[in-house]
């Protein structure tokens, strides 16, 4: 897993990553990714608070890279979060806003600007099985696909917010949606 992450990282950095945007239901993709971590949430005895829009929300993105972003962010929340993890997706005007928040008392989270730095790790002893690349890759992939990403910390909650442009409605009305 670690090797794979580093390889992805190198590919992203070199620009050797092909992005094939298609019309993706960002909400459905999020649901599937959340459930792929079902056992992990159960093991940590955390039930995520999930808020989703009723309707599908579409964006022109590469589905495999979007999955990668979700995976890295959710994994980060599971590794560093305690007590509470909240995931919300909101469609507002022409944007889709994703927020993943986790309660944490770890010192490093209080400096959110640093978390996107490569190999930035919360504990020098590497107790967690992470490379410190997950969020860095999530950031690169988000930006490559035209989105924006930021980290924040308030009231013991560490959060990642990602914003993507919604695909305009006329664009997806005429296309067959997979």
């Amino acid at each position, binding site marked *: 897993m670690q090797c794979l992450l580093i390889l992805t990282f190198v590919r992203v950095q070199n620009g050797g990553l092909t992005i094939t945007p298609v019309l993706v*239901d960002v909400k*459905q993709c999020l*649901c*599937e990714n*959340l*459930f792929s971590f*079902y056992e992990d949430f159960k093991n940590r005895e955390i*039930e*995520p*608070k*999930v808020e*989703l829009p*009723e*309707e*599908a929300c579409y964006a022109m993105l590469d589905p495999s890279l979007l999955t990668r972003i979700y995976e890295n962010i959710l994994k980060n929340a599971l590794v560093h979060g305690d007590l509470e993890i909240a995931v919300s997706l909101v469609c507002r005007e022409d944007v889709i806003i994703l927020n993943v928040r986790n309660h944490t008392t770890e010192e490093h989270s209080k400096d959110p600007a640093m978390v996107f730095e490569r190999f930035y790790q919360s504990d020098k002893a590497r107790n967690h099985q992470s490379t410190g690349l997950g969020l860095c890759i999530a950031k690169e992939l988000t930006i490559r696909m035209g989105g924006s990403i930021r980290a924040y910390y308030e009231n013991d909650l560490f959060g990642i917010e990602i914003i993507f442009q919604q695909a305009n409605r006329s664009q997806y009305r005429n296309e067959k*949606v997979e």
Partner: protein
Amino acid sequence: MKKILVIEDNSEINAMLCEMLHKEDMEPQSAFSGTEGLLYMKQKSFACILLDLMLPGKSGEETLLEIRKMCKTPVIVISAKNDIDVRVALLETGADDYITKPFDLREVMARIRLQLHKTTPVEVKRLTAGNLVLDQEQHTVMVCGKELGLTRQEFNILETLMLNPKKVFTKQELFESAWEEYYIGADKTINVHISNIRSKMKQITEEEYIETIWGIGFRWRA
């Protein structure tokens, strides 16, 4: 009696195949287009499907893909297309056998028997969980010996959940399993189906069989 679906637009060939099946003590159902065939499939289950490729409207290839989304019923393609690439592609996308036209009726019958023979012993027809028995052939669900009276969509949803007892399904995945046409706003439809199933069950038992996960998905409560 084994039900066999014959999807063939040429009425003479269709009638000939059906007559042969009758003689062999099978119950043929003729369909003259892919859409018609799929419609019958939603109403009853077949032991085997004969499928022509050059059909009006939805092609045989498209029909095959849709059949495969629904079930694993053996499909024998019967077609004048003798191209090796076509044959290989079809076998790889889910056809169980391929017969080229013109065909000999005895060969068709032998190949149907072969498919029936293959499926009969391994076919799972009943799923059981606690006091609940789902009969995949009769399309009925009994709880504590009483029939639930589910609609086709409700039955499909329950069957999907039972067949994958560990998987957490998103609403959209269940929606697709119910074989409904895609439309935006599927979540509401699934919520309605699930609550209908639950209220039908509640009339018979207090036991909960379907678990809601995080408010966004469902899972079979094993």
